[in-house]
């Protein structure tokens, strides 16, 4: 039974996406409740899958009982199940928030469409993580591209359209590069299954090295483009800024990470670390990551639009993950995985608490935070915790992430990155702290005398409180998460 659960999850998400328009006709509230229950179900089953996979062994599922060289194969290993758990958790939290925040630019006829896209996107993300087949991965990637772009342009406003256009265009170039890489790999091995490919890649390296070079370069660059690794980040700030806050949260916290996870899967499972490093690609990624850490923060500092600022901050944080990955060591990978989860929680908390600010003030400007800390204390406190996590103050998960990265960087003798980490943290402090100061330490010019606590729907407050607490929890007991990550790495 438990080996069928991954497929049941997928099918349930897909069915929900299809059903939303029909159930909506009966009652929109019912749709929301049903979706929530479904997500809880998916979450619980993901937990069971993880426990099963960790204790018993990988779940391998063949569609239609074809052999793996012919048919599509799903392989649920600890890596996939941990990150589906991560995706599911954040998706549920953001879903709850989105059910409260009905104003942000989406008009009511679009609500149901929003949820169709949301569930489709979740379906594709689960699919990517489970899938053990490259072409299947490509198809899921395309589904994510389309749904995530649509989730941006769902607002009936002007700005999202050009942003979404650029996003789709670049994403499509990225996807085609990825497909081109798959073609190159298929040419030498005749397989699309990741395990089978890995077996033939060494013999392919001796016969047709140029193919493998093209495959590595095109797939890496294609995924970098989609994951917004530094020089390819140009679409991200626009796209994330103009989207509704819930969309920005899921895009920045989860979707971007999925591509990095695919890249990790490719490097570790298909090409192998030695091959990848022998082409100098680790150096390339290190440079990209290091440059991103600093440039992302510098760009973020100059922004006047709060959500663009958060978008650039994501670029910088992706740099941290890429550096961890590019070290090509277990320690580096640990730090990358930890940072993926830590940043997912933190960035979701930031975008959602900013969402409350937008809900209240209908403006995205960095200015105008004066006295907000007393109007929406909970939201600004969570914003503060998340900002401290970004800066790397101890007791937050961001500190542990930085600590891990620092240790990993040293073990690879890349001492210069210690300086890069510190400079990037300082730059982070330079743009997050003034906002916090304004919120808590300046008086609002409009309400000099009495500042009342504004009423925010509980469905919006609860998720960010959970996110804030989990940032602290992981910051204080990182080993809860570290054990899981170690398990993943041991079995990867």
């Amino acid at each position, binding site marked *: 039974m438990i080996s069928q659960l991954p497929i049941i999850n997928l099918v349930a998400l897909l069915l929900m996406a299809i059903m939303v328009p029909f159930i909506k006709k009966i009652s929109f509230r019912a749709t929301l409740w049903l979706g929530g229950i479904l997500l809880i179900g998916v979450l619980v089953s993901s937990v069971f899958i993880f426990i099963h996979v960790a204790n018993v062994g990988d779940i391998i599922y063949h569609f239609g009982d074809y052999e793996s060289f012919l048919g599509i194969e799903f392989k649920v290993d600890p890596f996939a199940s941990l990150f589906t758990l991560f995706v599911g958790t954040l998706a549920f939290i953001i879903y709850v928030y989105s059910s409260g925040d009905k104003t942000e630019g989406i008009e009511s006829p679009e609500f149901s469409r929003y949820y169709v896209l949301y569930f489709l996107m979740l379906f594709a993300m689960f699919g990517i993580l489970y899938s053990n087949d490259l072409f299947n991965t490509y198809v899921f990637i395309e589904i994510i591209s*389309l749904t995530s772009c649509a989730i941006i342009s769902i607002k009936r406003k002007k700005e999202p*359209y050009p942003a979404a256009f650029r996003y*789709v265009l670049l994403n499509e170039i990225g996807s085609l590069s990825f497909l081109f890489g798959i073609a190159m790999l298929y040419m030498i091995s005749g397989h*699309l299954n990741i395990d089978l490919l890995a077996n033939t890649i060494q013999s392919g390296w001796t016969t047709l090295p140029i193919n493998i070079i093209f495959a590595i370069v095109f797939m890496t660059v294609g995924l970098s483009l989609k994951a917004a690794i530094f020089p390819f980040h140009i679409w991200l700030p626009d796209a994330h800024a103009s989207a509704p806050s819930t969309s920005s949260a899921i895009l920045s916290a989860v979707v971007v990470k999925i591509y990095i996870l695919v890249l990790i899967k490719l490097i570790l499972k298909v090409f192998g670390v030695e091959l990848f490093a022998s082409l100098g690609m680790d150096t390339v990624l290190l440079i990209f990551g290091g440059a991103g850490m600093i440039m992302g923060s510098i760009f973020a500092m100059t922004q006047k639009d709060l959500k663009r600022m958060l978008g650039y901050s994501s670029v910088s944080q992706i740099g941290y993950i890429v550096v961890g990955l590019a070290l090509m060591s277990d320690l580096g990978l640990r730090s990358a995985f930890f940072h993926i989860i830590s940043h997912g929680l933190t960035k979701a908390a930031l975008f959602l608490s900013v969402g409350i600010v937008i809900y209240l003030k209908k403006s995205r400007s960095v200015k105008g935070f004066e006295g907000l800390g007393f109007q929406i204390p909970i939201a600004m406190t969570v914003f503060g915790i998340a900002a401290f996590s970004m800066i790397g103050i101890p007791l937050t998960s961001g500190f542990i992430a930085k600590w891990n990265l620092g240790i990993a960087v040293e073990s690879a003798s890349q001492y210069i990155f210690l300086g890069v980490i510190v400079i990037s943290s300082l730059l982070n402090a330079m743009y997050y702290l003034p906002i916090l100061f304004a919120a808590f330490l300046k008086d609002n010019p409009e309400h000099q005398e009495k500042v009342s606590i504004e009423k925010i729907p509980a469905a919006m407050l609860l998720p960010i409180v959970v996110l804030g607490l989990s940032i602290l929890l992981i910051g204080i007991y990182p080993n809860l998460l570290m054990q899981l990550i170690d398990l993943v790495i041991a079995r990867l």
Partner: protein
Amino acid sequence: MNILERIVENINYLGGAALFLIGLHTVVTHTNLIKKIIGINIMGTGVFLFFIAIGNIEGGTPPIWLEGMENPIFVNPVPSALILTGIVVSVSVTVYLLSLVIRIFQTYGTIDQKELAEIMEQEVPHD
């Protein structure tokens, strides 16, 4: 002559790669959004062609079993099947992009990227 022979042998692959580059060139150099979409499609076609070329076997027949065949050489059917999916994806992306272009034209009144950028820069006041 050797080089020429190799070119002729690999003409399918080279054609695919050439289409890819042509498409990319279109995307990069043209500012018209519709042309960019066309470029993307050309790129996609290039990759698809490349993929199908892998499956091709010299002198192979379509992989359909007929009565009385003896040791038939079939063309690899898997790439073609995959590319069918790819084409579907490509079509949906194109449709989505085109619909976005319509929206852009409705709201901004232009589909030229440079003009669009200028309009957007004017609309966002510098603080």
